[in-house]
């Protein structure tokens, strides 16, 4: 299970966001370069979807198989400002793509996500804040030739692992952290767009001129 929120920020403000995050997180920045392949079962199989993530940021690429379940529903879930959903993940060998092709899955689409991320703790929850550009590939698997799908816009995502007995606390930890970012961007449940924040330019200018100066959590 994980809790997740998303938002967008103009690319020209990403550097300011990074300055803010460095100050807030107190954790080293991690480079993100993930080739994400979305596979769907063929017409003969029970309908299902799986994602393969190939982490290209490291010297040796590593693969993760990921299944994302439907969002939690109900009155309790509606009251949360974060989305809660079941996930299942597994590290796997580099034969993962051939394996899923072999059992009848087809490539639906692929993207390359590039940017950076911070992993840290807030109120006991393990948060990951990622700031990425989503890129498409002009040819199959051509990650070196990827181009942004939405030039000038970056996606900001905060995720945290959760369990049935603590997801409300994790959601609260994410929500409280989001408030620190509110001058630059608003984060909400995936699928609910809040657009660009009007104060973003002013906040970014302030961060760039002050070089941060933010109290670390």
């Amino acid at each position: 299970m994980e809790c997740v929120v998303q938002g967008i920020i103009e690319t020209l403000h990403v550097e300011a966001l990074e300055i803010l995050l460095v100050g807030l997180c107190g954790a080293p920045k991690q480079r993100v370069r993930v080739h994400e392949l979305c596979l769907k079962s063929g017409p003969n199989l029970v309908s299902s979807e799986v994602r393969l993530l190939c982490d290209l940021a490291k010297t040796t690429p590593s693969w993760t198989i990921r299944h994302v379940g439907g969002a939690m529903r109900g009155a309790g879930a509606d009251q949360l400002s974060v989305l809660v959903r079941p996930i299942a993940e597994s590290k796997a060998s580099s034969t993962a793509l051939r394996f899923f092709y072999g059992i009848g899955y087809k490539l639906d689409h692929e993207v390359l996500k590039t940017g950076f991320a911070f992993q840290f703790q807030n109120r006991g929850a393990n948060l990951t804040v990622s700031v990425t550009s989503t890129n498409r590939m002009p040819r199959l698997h051509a990650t070196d030739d990827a181009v942004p799908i939405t030039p000038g816009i970056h996606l900001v995502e905060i995720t945290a692992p959760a369990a049935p007995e603590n997801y409300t606390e994790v959601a609260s930890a994410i929500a409280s952290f989001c408030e620190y970012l509110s001058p630059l961007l608003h984060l909400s449940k995936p699928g609910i767009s809040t657009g660009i924040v009007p104060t973003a330019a002013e906040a970014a200018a302030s961060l760039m001129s002050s070089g941060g100066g933010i109290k670390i959590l």
Partner: protein
Amino acid sequence: MTVKWLMHFQPNQGTTLTSQVMAEACAVAESFPGVSRDGRWRSAMTFYRAVPRDQSLPAPSDLPRDLIGISLHDLPNEYLFVMRSQRLILRAHSSVQTVMDKLQSYKGRFFINFEGLQYKWGDFKLRIGKCLYNPNEALRGIVMEVEYLPLSSMDKSQRVMEEFYEIWREAVASKLLAGQFINTEVNFVEYGLGDSYTPQHTAVLYGMCVVQVIASSNKNQ
């Protein structure tokens, strides 16, 4: 990972495999000078079948019918899949079973456990076990996994493993069992595997061995 060979007991034609063979094989191992019992071992295998979208129809022929998953006794946090027809192996964290459960496109249809006794003999580890259908525990075969601890190279360990195999065959023959142990031969190159031994090699060995065990069991019933 150090080199392993995997053998199964091939009963003589017309004879039925019984638990007595397991007892006799263990007695052979225990007769080796300096051998010590080293606990028990257990590996588990699942045979998967595709779940067709229209479940009133049989599974389409273009989907694999030989997908197996293996949990190995010495790698409790990992899980391996083997598709012999495509010479394909996937090695993953054990949580991949949860992913497959969520996908629901393939389900475990029947299950086999390999379990028995483990021995340490000099530089060798011997694991003798029953091959049992789960859950009714019907005996389908007897297997022996031989591990040579000093080496990870299959080429370099070939000679010493062959010598052990001969010692083992002669010792078993002296017990006048109605059958013999056959080594599982695999062309690992076809699976993209090299000389350095890995869990993927073990998975392929078990995948091949179980086919021979089941065929042998069906023939003698």
